[in-house]
Structure formats: structure tokens, C-alpha cells
């Protein structure tokens, strides 16, 4: 506990790292709220100039998506979440508005299954699910000169859904373009003049994407939305 007041009063980078560590160490025995407040205070502390001119930046990210159709993904892939890699470009306007175009990719391999009486029987036939969203998103950056810039936005996405399995012939594989919508929120921190990092959470909905084919578990499980929640970390290159 003795380290927490220090965190409130010291904004230096080195001290910042010091305060993070004790916070984790206190888990389970002491409330983390003071630590969180301290971290927010540090991050919001003004240490950078607010954005005043147009910026064009690039970014790359890695994250984890938990699919809304969790039972279907669990049946075929063995889990309802998986890694997503992406990247894109972002334009930031002086009015604190931003627009970004992001492409990402989820890819995982499971197996075809049969479901009966609450049991799942794996059939050993490899099935690869690939989802490639292309998302156009606009939003607002709360850039008031804080060290950390929160932001939020919403947008539209075009999702290329591909499902291929061994022994499939002709139209038995799937390649469909689907439309969805998403909202996101995050916070970005400037690490260097040309380098920033961000964490963000996104919720997407891709309605009526699944569940219309008798040979899909999604129909059996009455799940039709290909969307889900994604948390990711992002590296931003550009001013």
C-alpha cells in the first residue's frame, strides 16, 4: 500500500513502471481501484500537444475475437475465440474526427462434427474457417492533450467468410461476402514521435450470416450472427 501514494504523485516513466508492478502484486489481497485510478491519472496527465493538423497513419494490430455464435464455433473449432491479425490506415482530422480502413483476418482449423443428444462427435475431417473483415470506421478522438487519447467510433464492415474442408467438392466449400456493423472504443498512447500504441475493444454484428444450411452446426444450434467481441492491441505508425 505504501507505493500507491507515490503513484499519485509521480508521473515519470520510470515511476510509472514501478506503480504497475506493485499493483499486480497486490491482486487478491488489496483492491485494485486505487491502482487503476493512479494509472488513469498518469495516462491522462498532459504531456503531449493536442492534435491540430491532419494526420495519415498506418497501424497493425493483434487481438482476440470471441464469436457471438459461440456454440457453433466451439463445436467445430473446439473454442469460441481465436486470434485476429489486422492492419490498416487511418486519417485523423483536426476536428478530432478520424476515419480508418482496416483489414483483418481470423483463421483456424477444426473438424466437421455430428451433434446428437447434447454430445459432439468429431469426425476427423479438417475444416478451416477463415474470416477476413474489411471495416470502414469513423469516430471521435478525445484528444485534449492528454498522454492517452481515448476514442470511440462505429462503422460498416464487409466480411469475407470462407469455410473449406477436406473432401469437399464443388459448392460444398463456402465463400461468402457478408455485411455487418461494428462499434469500438479504445485508448491510444504516444510512445514516440512517430509511434503510438493502443488498446481497443470492438463489438461487431454480422446478422443472418450463418444458420441457413442444413449441413451447418449453426443451423442446428440456431446461431446466425458471425459477429463478436474483439479486444486487441495496436501499434500506430505516423504522427
Amino acid at each position, binding site marked *: 500500500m505504501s507505493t500507491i501514494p507515490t503513484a499519485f504523485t509521480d508521473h515519470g516513466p520510470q515511476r510509472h513502471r514501478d506503480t504497475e508492478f506493485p499493483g499486480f502484486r497486490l491482486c487478491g489481497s488489496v483492491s485494485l481501484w486505487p491502482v487503476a485510478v493512479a494509472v488513469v491519472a498518469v495516462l491522462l496527465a498532459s504531456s503531449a500537444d493536442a492534435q491540430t493538423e491532419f494526420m495519415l497513419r498506418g497501424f497493425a494490430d493483434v487481438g482476440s475475437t470471441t464469436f457471438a455464435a459461440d456454440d457453433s464455433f466451439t463445436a467445430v473449432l473446439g473454442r469460441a475465440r481465436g486470434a485476429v491479425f489486422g492492419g490498416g490506415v487511418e486519417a485523423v482530422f483536426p476536428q478530432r474526427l478520424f476515419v480508418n480502413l482496416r483489414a483483418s483476418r481470423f483463421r483456424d482449423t477444426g473438424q466437421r462434427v455430428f451433434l446428437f443428444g447434447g454430445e459432439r462427435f468429431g469426425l476427423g475431417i479438417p475444416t478451416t474457417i477463415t474470416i477476413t473483415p474489411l471495416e470502414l470506421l469513423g469516430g471521435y478522438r478525445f484528444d485534449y492533450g492528454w498522454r492517452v487519447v481515448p476514442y470511440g467510433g462505429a462503422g460498416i464492415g464487409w466480411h469475407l467468410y470462407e469455410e473449406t474442408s477436406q473432401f469437399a467438392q464443388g459448392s460444398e*466449400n463456402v465463400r461468402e461476402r457478408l455485411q455487418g456493423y461494428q462499434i469500438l472504443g479504445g485508448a491510444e498512447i504516444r510512445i514516440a514521435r512517430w509511434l503510438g500504441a493502443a488498446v481497443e475493444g470492438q463489438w461487431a454484428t454480422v446478422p443472418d450470416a450463418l444458420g441457413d444450411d442444413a449441413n451447418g452446426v449453426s443451423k442446428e444450434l440456431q446461431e446466425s450472427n458471425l459477429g463478436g467481441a474483439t479486444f486487441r492491441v495496436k501499434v500506430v505508425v505516423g504522427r
Partner: protein
Amino acid sequence: MLHFHARPFRWPAVVVLAWLGAGGAQQAQLLPSRPQLLSESAPPAIDRGLRDLDPPRDPRTDDVEPVVDGEPFLRGSLIVKFRPGTSADAQRALLAQVDGAAARPLSYADFDIVSIDADADPESVARRLDAEPDVAYAQARYRVHPRFVPNDPLYARQWNYPAIDMERAWDINPGATPAVTVAVLDSGVAFRPGIVRYTARAVALARNRPVLPPLGSVEVPFAAAPDLGGADRFVSPRDFILDTTIPFDLDGHGTHVAGTLGQLTNNGVGAAGMAFNVRIMPVKVIASTWDLIFGSPQMGTDDIVARGIRYAADNGAQVLNLSIGRTGPPAPVIREAIAYAVSRGAFVAVAAGNGFENGNRVERLAEFAPQIEGMVGVGGIGRDRRRAFYSNTGPQVEIVAPGGNARVGGTEGAILQQTFDFDLVETYLRGPAQYRAPRFDSFAYQFLQGTSMATPHVAGFAALLMQQGITSPAAIEAVMKRYATDLGASGRDDEYGHGLINPRASLRGLGLAK
């Protein structure tokens, strides 16, 4: 009155065995005689090739089966199961009411065979006992009968596999593996060589037909069917007719059925089979004509079949093929045995019967199918994908498979598979002058038809599903029904059940979206 369902035999309506010693006039009960295994080896099997010029054989039904004394059941004994907790004294008292007595305990049975007066009507005695509160069931000992229609050079004549898209199914699962064992409960299987000495008695194949002379002591050669594989193909063989571990096939029905189930495939020889890598458990529960002529102690009654089913389940069979059946009164002893096998994780395929043109009577083995998840009743279709003329209809038909129909396409409209050269087996059909001891070491590719032939398609299909990962019998039944190709009236119907089996779609199962 157990009938062989599948193989279209030209058997007379009634086979009567009579002892010459009784002047040929007295139709006596069979007295058992014991064969003697003279040699465990024999000359190589003879392959007499394709028999596609033979006229079509009729499917077997109760009406064309050998029926000793014209009765479908055995006299002098009953099948009885007492309820748990019934004391031995109470059992004796109950049996005393019908002049009965318990026999020694049986292996692979949770019931008793009770002896009764040989002159008593087993049906009425069974009804009396069945009404007692301490009796779970009592029934007469009814006979059961068989039912019948890659680069293997004869594959081109096996229309039955393309009809169910097997080539693409084999792409996914090439014939399962030896990890799956399928029991063939039938007339035996030509699974090994040997020379056996039998005593052939005088016999009349039917009333009003000449009595065939006694052949006396005969040495009969056996060989393994060349296209079924070597000795390591077979596991836990058992003969409940002779109570041995050598279930020689003295008929050809079981060997043909085993071929459709698991004939070696893509070996450049002969024909193909559904699940060509599985192990086969030959369990003999059916007595053929030669078994009867040779005085077998058992006849393939309900109790024998029930014990065979329990034996197969207890010895590791994951799939049971019963290309057998009978009409007549219900067979609770078999129902319980099948339920037991399913509870042990075995899937059971049963022929739906060949008696459509003979009154379409209820098939007493297949009739349980709608009530037991993990057991299916199998009807037969021809190459025109329509119900074969013989195939029974009714609620017991849950699925259909190619059983052949010689009325559509002649002989080649039936199901081709390797079995015995019937010319050297069915000598009893040629009259006394040409009547001689059979040979079971000479093989040919024969076209047979019947629900007996359809059933091993389903049993083999079940073996593929087991290998693919669907290990629950109930789930296997569910996947078969789900992916069946609907035929006839839309949805489930009494002619085709849920439709024609679709192995490829079933083996693929479900993806995420498609």
C-alpha cells in the same frame, strides 16, 4: 419358423426330416449328432468365378424356408425369464403348474430354457406362464431365418455401391479399420479351412417329395472365402448351433452377407465390400438345410439368436448384422438381447423382411427397431431406387439400402458377392439321383436379393461411422436417418422409412456454416 431373409432360394415350402429307421413315415424330432473336425487344413479354395447366367433367385421368406415338422417353433421347451427376486422355490412351483422343469443355466443368456411336455402346445403354455406376475416373459422357441440381393474386376457389376455414392464415401473413410469389429449373426461364414466328418441322415425336403437317402458318414471340405481375407480378419468366431468355436457356413447366406459387409476391396480380385478393413466376428445362429440333414443339436431359434447377440456384444462387436428374421408371435427374448447389445455400445442392423408379397406380416426381429435407438430395420431397394418387390413395409422400416430386385434388370439386378458355388451345395434340390455330400470349398460370385443383402450395407455403413468418430449407437441411427435420401412419400414412410442411406453425406457431417 425363422426364415432366411435375403437369399432367393428355390427352397420348397416345407422341409420335413424323417428317419428312415422309422420307415420314412414318422416325422420325428431331430436327434442331434456331432460332427467331427478331421483336419484344420484343406486343399485351397476353388474359385468358380461369376455366375451371372443363373436365373434370379427368390428372396427368402418364412414360406420358403425349411421348417421341420411344418412348425415354426420347437416343441418340448420354452424360453422363460423370471422377474428378479423370484425365488427358486417359486420358480419351481410356477413351472410345476405347466409340468415344466428348468434346464441348466445357459451362457450369454439372462433367461432360462424350460422343458415342458413334448405334446404340449408351447404357445399356450407360454401364455399361461406369461400371465404370472413373477414371469417377465415366456415364449415359444421360434426359429429365425436369414433374409436376402475400385479395381475389383467385378466391381462394375456392383451397381449397389454407386447407388449409395460409396465411391465418394470411401474417399472419406476407406473401409474403416480393424479397430472396428462387426458381428455377422447368420448361417456362419466361410472363414477358415477344414475337413469335417458329418453323418447325413435320410431326409425329405418337403411333404409329398421323395425322401433323400441317408448319405451316412461324409467328409466335407471347407475353405475360407478367398475374397474375405485371411485368418486375422476374423475374431471370436462362435457357433451356437453346434456350440463350438468353428461357425462353418453350411449354406452360403452368411458368407454372402459377410462379403457385402467387408469383402476385400481394391485388391484386384473379385468384388468389393462396404467396410473392407473391419474385423468380422462370425456368429452362427441359423441352421441351414445341411445343418438339419447333419442333425445339428440346435436350430436357430429365438433363444439361440438372443444368446448370439449377447455373445457378440460381450466379445467386443461394435456393430451387429442380423440379416435374419421371422414372423409369428413376438420375440421378447430377442428384444431384450438387442437392447442389451445397444446398451453395451453396439449398433444393430436388422433385415425388415422379404414377405411383402406373402401377406407383409410383422417381422418380429425388426419390429423393435422403432423403439430402440441404436437399432435400425432395413428395407431393400432395386437398382431403380424403388422398393424391391419382396421388401416388407411397415413401421419397422427405418431406412433402406440396396437389396436387389431381379424383376428390374434380371439376375444382375440383384447383389453380387462371393459365396459358395451353389451347384455343389444345394445337391438336395436335384433329387435323390444327384444327391451327394456338399462341398464348401468351392466359391463363385452369386447374385442374391433380399433385405438380407440390404442389411450389411447398413452394418458396413455403421462401421464406417464408428471409425469416423460416431461411437454411440443412437447417434449412428440418428445420423443415418438425418442424411438419408428421401424416397417415396415425402418424409418418413412405411415403404422406405427415412430413405436411402447416404454414407458420404453422413460421414462428412456438419461444418460451421455448411
